[in-house]
């Protein structure tokens, strides 16, 4: 009977059969850990599996049930049981795997670029609208205080309104263009994360 068991060395240091069997495990927490365990350097596997094992034992304790009854549906705490190691694992994977790390840094740069573009788009749009409105109000006041014939005044007023609308239209177009650029950057980052680009 005993010969059907993996050897101790395999168990502790990461025999493939051990990890393969674990992938059929019943617990989501264990699955979460195991979905990434093969990417982790062997020296780390024991530490990670210890944390995961602690999670599986913990999930069977009264403390777990107590927590569950109090914190059900709180998103931050949903990660608690058995997945404690997962956060650390993801970070370690990024640090240990140069390709993952590069991909992460690279996609992060594009995401940051997208965020910067969006912020710039909002700022410039609001600044542009304020400038247009301010100019419009100032010119309308000046027009109101001039002594032009009613027809001339009405024509000048319509011209100002048209200018204002053009200004707002241009600001909107500029905003839309920058948001499209941000979207492109975001899509590029997603492609990198999916492994389609580097």
């Amino acid at each position, binding site marked *: 009977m005993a010969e059907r068991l993996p050897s101790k060395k395999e*168990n*502790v240091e990461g025999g493939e059969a*051990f990890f393969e069997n674990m992938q059929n495990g019943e617990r989501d927490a264990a699955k979460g850990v195991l979905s990434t365990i093969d990417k982790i350097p062997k020296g780390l596997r024991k530490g990670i599996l210890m944390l995961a*094992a602690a999670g*599986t034992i913990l999930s069977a304790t009264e403390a777990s049930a107590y927590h569950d009854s109090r914190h059900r549906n709180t998103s931050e705490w949903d990660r608690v049981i058995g997945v404690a190691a997962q956060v650390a694992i993801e*970070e370690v994977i990024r640090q240990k795997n140069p390709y993952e790390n590069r991909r992460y840094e690279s996609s992060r740069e594009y995401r940051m670029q997208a965020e910067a573009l969006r912020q710039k788009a909002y700022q410039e749009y609001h600044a542009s609208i304020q400038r247009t409105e301010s100019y419009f109000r100032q010119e309308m006041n000046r027009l109101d205080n001039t002594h032009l014939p009613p027809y001339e005044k009405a024509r000048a007023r319509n011209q100002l309104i048209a200018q204002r609308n053009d200004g707002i239209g241009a600001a909107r177009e500029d905003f839309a263009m920058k948001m499209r650029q941000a979207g492109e950057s975001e899509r590029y980052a997603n492609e990198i994360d999916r492994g389609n680009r580097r």
Partner: protein
Amino acid sequence: MVPEEEIKEKLISAISAYEDFSDAEKASWIKTLDAVPVDYQVFLLGLFETSPEDILKLNENIKAKQEILESGDEAAWKELLEKEKKELEELAAKGEEK
């Protein structure tokens, strides 16, 4: 005896014989075994047999988490996660040195 039962029996023996556990700790570990997937049981059995000092660490980790869960102290939980992360990073660094 099927392999799962054999593993569990061996694990119960290892827990019972573990001198650094109090009787309450032994009982608590044995009580939770049914909820621990068999592959983790194999892993734990390996620890008991090859590096029992890690069982102590594991037990401390579980107790710390139990206390935090009972207190509902979210900040303490985050702090613990950070500590675990650092420990893993140290392990990773050691692996590079070798």
